[in-house]
């Protein structure tokens, strides 16, 4: 009897809902479309993330050969030959920077390869590198040394204004060995992550279609926010003096010594857009938003990406000079980066019901 009352109530509630929803929106109530998250994740894994790691591995091998060649005969001319190879590898890293999850998270790949902000002349990490080179004893496995290796360390050791001189100094054997050790560590970390993705993590990644903290979708949405925070902060904003009332710290730029900071920032953001739309197949978070009937948000995000990329490209190279000499161009880019950041971090995360937080504590 009582169960019948309860049941009856539920049934009548449903009936009322249908009556109401029909009345208020005649015709077609926009029902959310189904969406195959598994297929989206397969696209991310197979067409975007794993190929990016493969490419980085290849680029690092090429770079290793080029670095060894340069170290055998460290001249200014050879340094110039080395630079495009170094740039290609660094750009390749920008395309895996986003994928800081799974194996990369476990191995701290991003931390070891590219901790930002990059070291500066007055940085104690730079002094530590020099003292490590002098003593010849150091442990690049230690997490305390994340600031003393990876691309920022190579950038300094290979392209600082006195790099060639130092490589020809007495005691250069230690310096060359340090560079080779940094190179070897970057290679082994990268191939470790790639192997792990191929052999084990890919399966877990594509099978987990949840959106909670720690899930692939949750992680990816958080990474969009994180990469935008990085771009707004250490990549552009902090060196530009946003935190320091306009006092410019150009040496804090990513890739400062090789003078490729702007290219790196553009590559990072361009790749972030590719990841957003899901590459050539288009089966990315963009498609997920469309399935959720967030057409306007999706087209706005794409427009904000294009605006921000265009504004970055409008800044004259090198960025280190433009921070002081072309402030309006930098300001314009900064403004558009901030707009895109809000759209990704707040609007997209909210629409996809993903929390921007790494902690998994309770909520209600």
């Amino acid at each position, binding site marked *: *009897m*009582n*169960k019948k*009352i*309860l049941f009856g109530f539920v049934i009548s*509630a*449903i009936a*009322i*809902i*249908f009556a*109401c*929803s029909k009345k*208020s929106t005649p015709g077609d*109530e*926009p*029902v*959310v*479309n*189904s*969406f195959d*998250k598994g297929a989206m994740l397969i696209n991310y894994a197979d067409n975007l993330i794993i190929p990016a790691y493969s490419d980085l591995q290849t680029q690092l091998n090429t770079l290793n050969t080029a670095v060894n060649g340069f170290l055998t005969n460290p001249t200014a001319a050879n340094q110039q030959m080395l630079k495009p190879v170094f740039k290609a590898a660094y750009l390749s890293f920008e395309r895996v920077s986003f994928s800081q999850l799974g194996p990369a998270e476990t191995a701290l790949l991003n931390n070891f390869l590219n901790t930002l902000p990059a070291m500066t002349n007055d940085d104690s990490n730079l002094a530590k590198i020099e003292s490590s080179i002098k003593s010849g004893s150091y442990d690049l496995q230690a997490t305390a040394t994340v600031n003393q290796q990876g691309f920022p360390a190579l950038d300094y050791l290979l392209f600082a204004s006195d790099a060639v001189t130092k490589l020809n100094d007495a005691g250069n054997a230690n310096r060359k060995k340090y560079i080779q050790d940094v190179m070897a560590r970057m290679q082994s970390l990268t191939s470790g992550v790639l192997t792990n993705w191929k052999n084990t993590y890919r399966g877990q990644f594509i099978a*987990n*279609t*949840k*959106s*909670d*903290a720690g899930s692939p979708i949750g992680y990816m949405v958080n990474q969009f926010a994180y990469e935008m*925070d990085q771009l707004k*902060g250490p990549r552009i*904003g*902090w060196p530009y003096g*946003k*935190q*320091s*009332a*306009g006092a410019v710290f150009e040496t804090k730029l990513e890739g400062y010594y090789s003078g490729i900071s702007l290219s790196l920032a553009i590559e990072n953001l361009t790749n972030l857009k590719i990841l957003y739309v899901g590459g050539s197949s288009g089966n990315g978070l963009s498609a997920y938003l469309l*399935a*959720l009937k967030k057409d*306007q948000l999706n087209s706005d995000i794409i427009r904000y990406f294009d605006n921000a990329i265009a504004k970055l490209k409008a800044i004259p190279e090198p960025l280190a000079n433009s921070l002081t000499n072309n402030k309006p161009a930098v300001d314009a880019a900064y403004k558009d980066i*901030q707009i895109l*950041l*809000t759209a990704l*971090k*707040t*609007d997209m995360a*909210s*629409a*996809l*019901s*993903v*929390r*921007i*937080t*790494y*902690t*998994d*504590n*309770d*909520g*209600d």
Partner: protein
Amino acid sequence: MATKFLSPNKKGVMDNWREKITRPISISPLITFRIIFGALMLFSTVRFWANGWIDSLYVKPQIYFTYMGFEWVKPLGDTGMHLLFLIMGLSAIGIMLGLLYRFSAILFFLSFTYVELIDVTNYLNHYYFVSIVAFLLILLPAGRCKSVDIWFSPQRKITHVPLWIVGVIRLQMAIVYFYAGLAKLTPEWMLEAIPMKIWLPAKSHLPLVGPLMYKAWVAYLFSWFGAAYDLLIPFFLINRKTRNSGFLAVLAFHICTAIFFPAIGMFPYVMMLSSLIFFSSSFHDKLLGVHRRVSFPSKLLPAIQAKFLSVVLTVYFFIQIVVPLRFLLYPGHLFWYEEGYRFSWRVMLMEKSGNTFFYVKESKTGKTFEVDNSKYLTPQQEKMMSTQPDMIIRYAHFLKAEYQKKGIKDPKIYAEGFVALNGLRSQPFIDPNIDLASQQLSFGHVQWILPFYKDSK
């Protein structure tokens, strides 16, 4: 019904009610409740510790968002916080076993509530529920039977209490449910099925029901069933005839919430087990293996104690009924301003997120420093702060002090905030021309939050 003890001393029908609610019943429902509550709290404490949350929520953060009037509540450091949780766990055991019962209950209430008062960031309705139930347990004679205390001093044993003593917990639960139901009666929840429509597609990974999560009617079903459940369940549970089916609904509802929204943690289990309090004393007698003589009870709660309790609890419930209604005193959209939002049983009611950029401006020179929030706040704190006005003010005050320490003279704190509410696009949240450090926390309506526009899709 238990509520009626609130209005004693009326003739006729009231006298009848009075007689009914003061009728002695077995103390067993209270005893079961005590044991279950103690066990759940012990489990919660262990879980919290094991998850490393003591460290990440109460040791690692650099700043804490305290409650107005409770600024003196401070985290106690690594060792101190772990000790506090140890005390919490031990007092939960004390409650469960009825060992030094009142002392344990007081200790649990104080330690748990202290922890909750440290940081607004971690406010959860079910933590608040735990705090007030712990407070009620201090007052109620739940340690006077089937307890270690009584094993040591059997002369203090009580076998029967007036019905309203058990009614206290029932009424408290009924208030929670009913207010949670009232809060859902908004056009968005009922007519648009928002935020269910936003949340459910994120649950499409679930087996069997996964594909249904994209259907609008499922979102409506969840919304309407949720509202109806919260509003009606107290009545179903109080009424003897509907109690069994009501309890089935409790199980069904909370198991569903545990499956669909695992992030709510212990809450479903706390509510499912607490609902057992609605069952009759004979049910609880059986559960506890008590065989009571049906004859006149021998060990009653002393009358003077009952009288005292009835006065204290009348005041208590008056507060409980009024506090959730305080939002009525504020103008503007409740979800936007969140004035009177907490302590009102508004559970899983809105989808709200935001981000905020803070700027510190030195008055004389006009020099502006942008703040890296992640330097001072945990991601969770930053997220919570970005959508809650009182936290924004606290943070602005912190920034002012922080930048003064850095040598900035008379810093003014400005912010640009963007908040997306219930599936709408993000909107500017904070008036960027107001020095937030000059604003004081108060119970008045905030003036520096920009108005909410509903039709900004």
